[in-house]
């Protein structure tokens, strides 16, 4: 087990290195560099900038050096916690991201909890009461949840909230807490707003996990060991929880990292529609405005979140499933 974990950590470091290169490429990708974009904006504002000034700026920013040196300089800074400077916000990238990252993490975590809290019990119910009315409703909702893009669902919720309750379901704060310092009241206010993005973000994942849970549990329920245990007189509920459900949880845990990646991937669009103060809108705006240090740092954060999540789910799976822990083929 220890050996396996060290190997996983080694692989993790290699992946992180590759991802830092991708993030750097993304920073470099847009045609022209930041200086061009900056000059374009200033010229539009009526300010005249000479070529000399641009060159001075490039030297100051280290843009005249070869690419690998620029990469080393950038990654050196990242390792020391310096993510570069956001020209759009005129502040260090770290500060810009820092004030939005906690809320993003809270939202992602809450979504994952919601997904599993809903999907697992309903999946178990659906499998145990196969072809009942409840099962049919769950299956139908599952199909719909998978087919509806999150942002569309968010738009519909926005519209219905406006029409039926005359309120805006977007945002994470009530107006009176917008600029207030953090307090218990503000925290409670956030919680009361959080459920909308959590449901929207968690919908597709819940639908998927529900189907997985139902399908695997149905497979397990037909196996001989269930009949044997039942014949042995174990009460139905204990039997269900102790053996088939535990088996059926394996694919659910195995897809935890993948699920996390889906949630993180879907978050930017939904955050924009619901105007949430997370890193999603920041990322899209950074891309649109070519604020590339900010964009690069954000994609780095997105990837790190996913990779760490996958790592945790692998470890969890090892704990849950002895076949993997002992190095056999699962």
């Amino acid at each position, binding site marked *: 087990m220890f050996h396996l974990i060290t190997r996983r950590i080694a692989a993790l470091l290699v992946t992180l290195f590759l991802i830092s290169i991708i993030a750097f490429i993304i920073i470099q990708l*847009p045609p022209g560099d930041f200086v061009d974009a900056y000059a374009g904006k200033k010229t539009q504002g009526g300010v005249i900038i000479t070529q000399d000034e641009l060159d001075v700026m490039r030297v100051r920013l280290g843009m005249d050096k070869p690419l690998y040196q620029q990469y080393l300089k950038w990654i050196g800074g990242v390792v020391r916690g310096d993510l570069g400077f956001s020209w759009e916000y005129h502040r260090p990238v770290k500060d810009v991201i820092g004030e939005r990252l906690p809320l993003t993490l809270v939202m992602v975590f809450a979504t994952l909890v919601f997904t599993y809290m809903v999907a697992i019990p309903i999946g178990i119910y659906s499998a145990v009461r196969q072809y009942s009315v409840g099962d049919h409703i769950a299956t139908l909702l599952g199909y719909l949840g998978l087919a509806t893009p999150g942002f569309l669902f968010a*738009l519909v919720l926005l519209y219905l909230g406006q029409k039926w309750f005359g309120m805006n379901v977007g945002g994470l704060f009530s107006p009176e807490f917008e600029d207030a310092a953090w307090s218990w009241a503000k925290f409670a206010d956030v919680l009361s707003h959080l459920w909308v993005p959590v449901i929207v973000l968690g919908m597709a994942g819940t639908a998927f996990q529900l189907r997985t849970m139902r399908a695997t549990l149905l497979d397990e329920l037909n196996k001989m060991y269930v009949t044997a245990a039942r014949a042995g007189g174990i009460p139905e509920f204990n039997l269900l929880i102790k053996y088939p459900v535990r088996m059926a949880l394996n694919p659910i845990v195995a897809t935890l990292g993948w699920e996390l990646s889906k949630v993180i991937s879907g978050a930017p669009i939904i955050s924009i529609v619901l105007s949430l103060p997370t890193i999603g809108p920041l990322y899209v705006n950074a891309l649109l405005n070519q604020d590339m240090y900010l964009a690069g740092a954000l994609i780095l954060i997105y990837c790190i979140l996913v990779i760490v999540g996958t790592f945790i789910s692998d470890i969890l799976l090892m704990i849950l499933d002895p076949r993997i822990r002992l190095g056999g083929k699962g």
Partner: protein
Amino acid sequence: MANKGYIDVNNKKVHRIDYATHWQLMWWKFRKNRMAMIAVGVLGIFLIISLFADFIAPYKSGTRNINYLQGPPIRVHLLDDKGNFHFHPFIYEMVKKRDPVTYRVSYVTDTSKKIPLRFFTRGETYRLWGLFESNLHLFGIDGGFINLFGTDQLGRDLFSRIMYATRISLSVGAVGVSFVFILGLIMGGIAGYLGGQTDELIMRLMEFIRSIPTIPLWLAMAAALPREWSSLKIYLAVTIILASVGWTNLGRRVRSKLISIREEDFILSARLAGCSDARIIIHHMLPSFMSYIIVDLTISFPYIILAETSLSFLGLGLREPIVSWGVLLYSAQNIQTLAQMPWLLITGLFIVISVLAFNFMGDGLRDAADPLAK
């Protein structure tokens, strides 16, 4: 298996099922799945819409009607306001009204004026598939205007725009899936056939791509496309971007199938009979797992459509004058617009229905791909 029929082989009566080909068995199993068959019908309608969008749409996607800006959907009636049945469908004329206090424009139906709906009318000229010039439209009215799904801020007919958008969105899916097919087959094929170091390298690459959150990556790549590119170039580039991440599933499938089939007896006998590598791959290996590839492609279709919709919705994918479902929803982003024109959400209905249909068809195909399983 439901097929109990008999056929004659060499003047002997035998069970049809014993002589059925693999594809026949698949079809028999597939058609038993009712939802999948309905899905095929729905997708057939979508296909017809995208092939004949210019004919079905009464207007072109960019045509503006300045007399009916932000107009609500116009309903087609068979019963008039007195409850009398009319054999010929008709619409009521919409009259513009201005609120004397707020000056806001609204539209009311004028039930005194019936305008009959005409089929196969002459309207705007278009070139079907860029080849045939025509001005024949499926339906229309004489004088006035007909907007089944209402109009947007610029007075463009939403129904017509959705018809054109269906064509674009489905074609993005089709082109994207073709790229996925080619990439997945080549990469998976190389990995599975060569094995060893190459296999290891390609597998690591696939794992790496899968570990990156897709939408942020797509966004970054799409944002890097030059703004001055033509919309056609953007269209192709966006499709390639979507496919460059989506091929890993198929690649894995091809690789694992190749590895398991490589050791089968029929491959060995083909090799002993002197077949070349290329012949073995194309004539013996590929057909034996073609059905699985088709399943994977069907399943990846809706993902590509949804991805394109998301990108365009954020303004980083396709752009006007090319309209896709995502481009249409782009204008419905904020709550003010939605509150004024809720009918813009009709586009979403098309997205959900098409993705549902693809999912159901994919499920049916997946069950049918292994026709001998119970």
